[in-house]
């Protein structure tokens, strides 16, 4: 079973509808047992880092997620669900799950015409091939809505970047975990493709191989 973590009573219907559209049978759950026994987990997020972490801890989902990830379950984090997978978020000065080393910062933009939140369609440039990002071509755009952005400590965990004054990491991954800053459920055909890929992914990914296939990446070791 694929479970969509419903830990903060957010509007997650769009994630489920996207799964349905690509034939991935997914249901909502906020129960730690569902997480530890899941075949796949989608970890979306709405609201703010502080309340999201409180809600995860109250339900025991923080520990359950770590258990599931350690056991190899494929996990897809979306937006705030991705952000809380890093160590720390500036939003509400929050210690987050620490599944991947890195931190989440508020955009500090110099150009006055650039607005915060970064809202709308923007190009995703894949830096390291990944099964879940397969089929994203140069020029493909995804839908973003966020005022904070992630940066990973280890460059090999950064999978794709987007430019908003500067490049920021918009997709990150480690082993069986992948997270996106953009909303694939709101990103049309190319977004649905990502759910299709995730539905088929066995949870295996290593930066070495991928960067070699990709013709070499400066950041990968």
């Amino acid at each position, binding site marked *: 079973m694929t479970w969509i973590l419903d830990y903060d009573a957010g*509007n997650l*219907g*769009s994630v489920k*509808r*996207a799964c*349905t*559209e690509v034939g991935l049978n997914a249901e909502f759950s906020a129960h730690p047992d569902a997480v530890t026994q899941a075949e796949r987990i989608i970890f979306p997020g*709405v*609201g703010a880092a502080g309340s999201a972490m409180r809600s995860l801890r109250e339900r025991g989902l923080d520990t359950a997620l770590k258990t599931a990830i350690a056991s190899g379950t494929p996990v897809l984090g979306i937006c705030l669900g991705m952000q809380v997978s890093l160590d720390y978020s500036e939003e509400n000065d929050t210690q987050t799950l620490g599944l991947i080393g890195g931190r989440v910062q508020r955009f500090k933009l110099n150009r*006055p*015409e*650039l*607005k*915060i*939140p*970064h*809202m*709308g*369609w*923007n*190009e995703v440039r894949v830096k390291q091939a990944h099964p879940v990002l397969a089929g994203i*071509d140069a*020029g*493909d*755009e995804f*839908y973003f*809505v*966020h*005022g904070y952005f992630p940066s990973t400590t280890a460059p090999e965990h950064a999978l794709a970047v987007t*430019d*908003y004054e500067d490049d920021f990491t918009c997709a990150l991954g480690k082993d069986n975990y992948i997270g996106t800053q953009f909303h694939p*459920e*709101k*990103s*049309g*055909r*190319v*977004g*649905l493709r990502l759910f299709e890929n995730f539905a088929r992914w066995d949870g295996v990914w290593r930066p070495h191989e991928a960067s070699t296939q990709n013709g070499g990446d400066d950041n990968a070791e």
Partner: protein
Amino acid sequence: MLSKRVVACLDVRDGHLAKSVKFVNTQNIGDPVEKAREYYLDGLDELVFYDITASSDKRNIMLDVVEAVASQVFIPLSVGGGIRSVADATDLRLAGAEKINVNSAAVARPDLINECSEAVGDQNIVLSMDVRRVQVSSEQPSGYEIVINGGRTPTGRDALDWALEGEKRGAGELVVNSIDADGTRDGYDIPLTSAIAEAVRIPVIASGGAGLPEHLHDVLTDGKADAALVASMVHYGDYRVSGLKQYLHEQGLKIRMSW
């Protein structure tokens, strides 16, 4: 770099699509779900539904429309019209709306903006404002006044001032709709749009008056808008969404061109 958005607005009355000209003489022009799907497949960046249902007992029809559209259209869906409370906003969000537009009720009770943005996130609250041109006065120094109730009731409120207050109260985006331009197809109100877009730090969607592709170009450049809202020019088949985007792309604007 962020792309400029082409947004289509569908006015829905009692579950049917309608398009007003200067907010009167609404004509029924088809099924909103079908139209939404058509635009989505043709590259639309965002969809706005405006519920202009007059009677409150038919309000729930809108939830069904939103739900039906949300399961077929995988782009941001924004819904407005008659939202008076956090409960209204939450119901629509659960039905599948990404963004909630508040308008008249927020003018009457500005706290609605704070309450809704707290409940569903400020990035999901759109302050939609209907604006008409007036004499510059001490009460309306910008020369633009907020009108409510579908353009029928003047409020005496200065439009620029209201935009800034909306931003401060937590609106994540503004729709600036010119009542003077609405339905005329003579072009957006560029001075109005740029005055507001330059004053706030949240995205602005320009609305009212689109009739030619050039109008979109002008409001996205001179008008400083982040998105251009279209209605009649695509509803009646004069232009296609993909054609408008192709034109803007050829003019050098950053536009999402693969879908």
